[in-house]
């Protein structure tokens, strides 16, 4: 629209994940996984609990370490 501008605050929806299942399947503890991807154990705990929205870079690293694809690890609400 000409001359009218909107400031849109984008919803920060945290993606759902199967990180815990993938981590257990890979035989790793939270601390071990955290060490391998270069974050803290608390960050892994929060991602598993759905309390932190990781960057794409971290998602890719998690998928690589747990031998899963991004699709298998993360998805958004309403998408199964």
């Amino acid at each position: 629209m000409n001359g009218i501008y909107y400031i849109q605050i984008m919803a920060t929806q945290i993606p759902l994940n199967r990180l815990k299942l993938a981590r257990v399947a890979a035989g790793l503890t939270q601390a071990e996984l955290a060490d391998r991807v270069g974050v803290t154990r608390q960050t892994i705990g929060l991602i598993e609990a759905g309390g932190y929205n990781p960057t794409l870079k971290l998602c890719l690293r998690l998928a690589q370490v747990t031998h899963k694809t991004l699709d298998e690890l993360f998805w958004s609400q309403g998408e199964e």
Partner: protein
Amino acid sequence: MFIQKTKIDERMRSNTRHAAAIWLGVTQILLAGVIFYRLYALGQPDAEVRDFQAVLAISIFGYLALQLILGGVMPVPTWRGAVAVYVALTSVIVAVCLIVYGWPKPEEWASTWLPVLAGPALFLCGYVLVARLGQWLVERQIERMSE
């Protein structure tokens, strides 16, 4: 070892930025509180709080300018839009000043009409320049990374 090495990951960096932004806001509010307290509770003259006012203005406008530059997505008004905003902004300021102070004497026009008319224009020019600079920087970054 007495001190355990802490790993700084992306979540901690994000939290640090969040905390800094919140605390910047708190600091600005406290500074504004100090200015009001000195002016209206202690009755100090305006000249004695000029330094606080300058720091507060630099802090607020510097923050907004940085947001515009780093974000690069803030709306840049068209010329017609900018003129409309200028007219609206100036009308509100003029109306409020006339109600509070009344019509100024001709010898006071340089210190009354001039800042009221030039202030919003300078503010809008600054906004447009900074917003355009932000957009240009982001577009240039995209071009450079796509090469």
